[in-house]
């Protein structure tokens, strides 16, 4: 999986995906989207980078303290829920307002500010934190003593060496065999590439 193409694409897609996830978050009130899906998309983008580069690459760039993202997200969401009570409204009361944007007297658009969007931001960070926390924990689970990130990704597409081990039950014919064959072919083709490329990108 760690081919040059994937690595290059991952970087490009990462930026687009993150921008789109922020777009989803901010525009959720009016077009499809919202904090939850935005957060999941963000984590998907990170997962793509993980598949291409490995966990170390991410941990070197993002502070791997995702649990505090969860905490701050929850705190933020709770505060936005409680905030109306300070000015004697009900719990979770929301408010919104519109702003006209003008430059040199020319109307160029309208901005809508929703208090519920702040709540959505809390959701966004909680989702990102929780999912990244799960992802990184599973990914950096040190069961093997080999270099985990490399062999992990090799395994992801079935590139590991002992995949040829015969299953106990006889393999059925048909679709099953096709898949197995594809996997086997890919194993053979990419195994050499993987090693070369990873060396290069380290």
């Amino acid at each position: 999986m760690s081919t040059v193409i994937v690595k290059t694409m991952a970087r490009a897609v990462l930026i687009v995906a993150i921008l789109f996830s922020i777009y989803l978050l901010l525009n959720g009130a009016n077009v499809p989207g919202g904090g939850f899906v935005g957060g999941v998309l963000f984590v998907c983008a990170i997962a793509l980078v993980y598949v291409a580069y490995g966990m170390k690459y991410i941990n070197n760039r993002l502070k791997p303290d995702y649990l505090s993202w969860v905490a701050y997200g929850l705190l933020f969401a709770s505060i936005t829920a409680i905030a109306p009570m300070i000015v004697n409204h009900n719990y979770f009361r929301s408010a919104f307002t519109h702003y006209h944007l003008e430059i040199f007297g020319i109307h160029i658009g309208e901005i809508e500010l929703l208090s519920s969007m702040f709540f959505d931001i809390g959701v966004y960070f909680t989702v990102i934190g929780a999912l990244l926390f799960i992802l990184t924990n599973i990914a950096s689970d040190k069961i093997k003593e080999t270099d985990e990130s490399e062999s992990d990704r090799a395994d992801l597409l079935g590139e590991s060496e002992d995949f040829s081990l015969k299953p106990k039950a006889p393999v059925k014919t048909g679709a099953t065999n096709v898949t197995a064959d594809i996997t086997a072919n890919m194993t053979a083709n990419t195994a050499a590439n993987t090693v070369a490329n990873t060396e290069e990108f380290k």
Partner: protein
Amino acid sequence: MVFHLLYSTYQLEKHGVITLDPFYFIALIVLLPFVMTLAVPFAYKLMKEKVGWFAAAIAAVCFLLIASMVPSIMDGNNPAGAVSWIPSLSVNLAFYADGLAVLLGLIVSFIGILILSYSNKYLSKDEDLVRYYQYLLVFMGSMFGVAFSDNLIQLFIFWELTSISSFMLIGYYRKTKESIYGATKALLITGGAGLFMFVGFMCLFAITGTYGISEMLTNPEMLAAIKESPLFTITLILILIGALAKSAQGPFFIWLPNAMEAPTPVSAFLHSATMVKAGVFLVARLHPMFSGTTDWFVLVAGLGLITMIGAGFLALKQTDLKAILAFSTISQLAYLMTMFGFTTYAEPGIGVSAAVFHLLNHATFKACLFLLVGIIAHELHTRDIRKMGGLRKEMPITFVLMVIAAAAMAGIPPLNGYLSKELFYESSVHMAEALGGGIAYLIPVLAVIGGVLTFAYSFRLILKIFTGKRTEDPDVPKHVHDPSWVMLAPPAILAVLIVVIGLVPTPFVEALVQPAVNAILPGAEHLHVALWHGITPAFIMTIITFALGILLYTQYDRIAAWQVRFNEKHPKISLNYVYNTMVDNAFRFGATFGRMLQKGSPRRYVGIMLAFIIFMVAIPLGFALATGQPIFSTNLIFKIAISEMILFILIVLAAWGASVLPRYVPMILASSALGFFVALLYAYLKAPDLAMTQLCVETLSTIMFLLVIMKLRTKEAIRPETNKVRLRNAFIALCAASALFLLLMGADLFPAFESFSHYFMDKGVELTGGKNIVNVIVVDFRGYDTIGEISVLSIAALAIYNLIQSRTKKDGVSVDADADAASKTAVPGNFVPSCPIPGAPVGGNQVLGHVPCEDVTIHQNGDKPTMSVDEKSVNSHLDEGFSNTIREEKK
């Protein structure tokens, strides 16, 4: 509300206490300890081991605030106020201060000041002081909440908070088995009984239609309605269960002796002076609703008398100082209960007045006794009374204080215990006369027996510890001395109070007792307390008590020895035996049931869930078939476009692939393909939000699935089961599918609820400003749900983290130890945690499961030896190994 509270405190500084709105003033008292809990860690950073003074200062502030209400309460005003919380259910945040609440509040805060100061020296520097003072402050706030609540639901919440803080404090020494046992016992009994009380409150609501306490108490119609209601007896019993368990009365007393595992200041605070008074407080609080009936007299006074004598008798055999005090607390609280029960028929007032007065007196002398016992245990490093003796010369101040406190408990004039005990005797005589004499004179006789027992164990505390010979025991230090003033001052203050109340009772009665009596029993006689009333029946009873008490003391050892022998002979005749059996059986049942369900195989769980679905559909289906009702809706229209058809076929294909593919990776890919097709279906059905979310979630879950599978290194075939098992699985799957199909087909037969989605659509833009209805519902209309969901997500993340961490630790060792063989071991089926190979060296930690050698076969596969393990064997040994691991961790 928060804003108002801040404003109120501002007002407090500006104008002084009186101008405050009563609601915010009382709310301030109740919430101050809770809020200050957050400040304890910061105070600890500044003050280190002296942080107890900070907590004591908070208690002092509360004391002053409550005391400032006394003048207005004496004038007959009852400050009260409420803000609505759940008005539709009559649940409000309501506070109410009357004489009774103020009395309890003053006792709690005053004893709190002394206890928190005393703790400064009692606890050593190395202990977790922050936790200790936080729990104590939470407890204090909850007690204020119980005292000042004007709503039964709110009272219940604070009530259970006291149970929880008591649980935390009893289990303060987390490592010892006894404190875990004691804490669990206290929580199970008081918390469990609290649930009965909760049902009792709901019965009251059913009768009166309100949860407001003062509303019920001040409305004569409601009081009459309660007494006439057919629910009366059951309501009374349910509420009494809660109150009796809290006050360790009747059969519920067994938790209190075990609660003595808490640090001694905690015992002095919670388990003698304040928390156990909550039950008595509730009985007093609800007195106007239930008193004046036979039920009330029989249940409250009857149980009280039995407990009083039983606990007093059991106190004789105790050898642990704190256990003696625990049983004496039970017995003294039973005095209070009895006196509240005495008010039924005649001369109302004497019983209640005596009870309230004794409530105050008992708090003073019992807290004092506990603090003194704490000093003795602190100096002697033991609480075994058999090892003590002759400490009079070494600890003179402690000795004097002990004489005062124990004599007050025994009822020796001129101390305060004498006064309230006289009243107790007087009320018992009145009660007997009111019942018409004859057999009713048994009541004063029982009262005297209770007094005699109290006299005997009180004097044992003085005589056995301080007089006689100094024992030569290796555990006891050779030289002891009075502790520093920090530990001596609190009991000394209490001892002074004991003497002062005894000599000049009138100001205390006027300021504290009489308002409380008026709150419980409006129109009660004014209480006159004096040391000398002339030769009354009560006085004669006191003389008899002293005489018999001295007599009993001479036989003390024989009675104690007889009790011990009896217990040894009949170990099953004890409430503790009943409790232990019940709890053990509950655990055993839970474990059996858990083992039945939790076999560690996800497939089994899915099977159980599907079977349940089938069950849930089969019953109404069978019923419909038997009665000849239609099971299908007749006006269903099937119209599926070709494009939809293709999508459905793809979905079915993917599902089929996921269930028949022979390896994990293709299987996961097939199942994620299924997910993508479903996303496509959502998009096709014009649900872009759902489709997008489904796509993202599916992508991520595929990656995670692959990660997990690769980490587990299970590359064996995944379908080792026989044809029989497969047939069974297929049958279950088919049945579940048909059940769901029938359910959907029949859904149209029933009238649908009125949909409220149009409300969201109509009002969405107007109320929230958002045009995307899905998002608006999630973050605005149903924001409450969402906040719950993200909390669940966070908890799930933590749970997964813990799972992985625990697995990594155990497996890590086994892999390192036998890296060559074990890392290649694969266990077929769903059993994934790597299991150690028998005979191979295993590190310090034990691993999950152990499998006997005969179940392991080694295949010579090229140059790499692989092993396979009999799955049945692994499963059967998994539980065992797992429970072993847990047991080890507990140690």
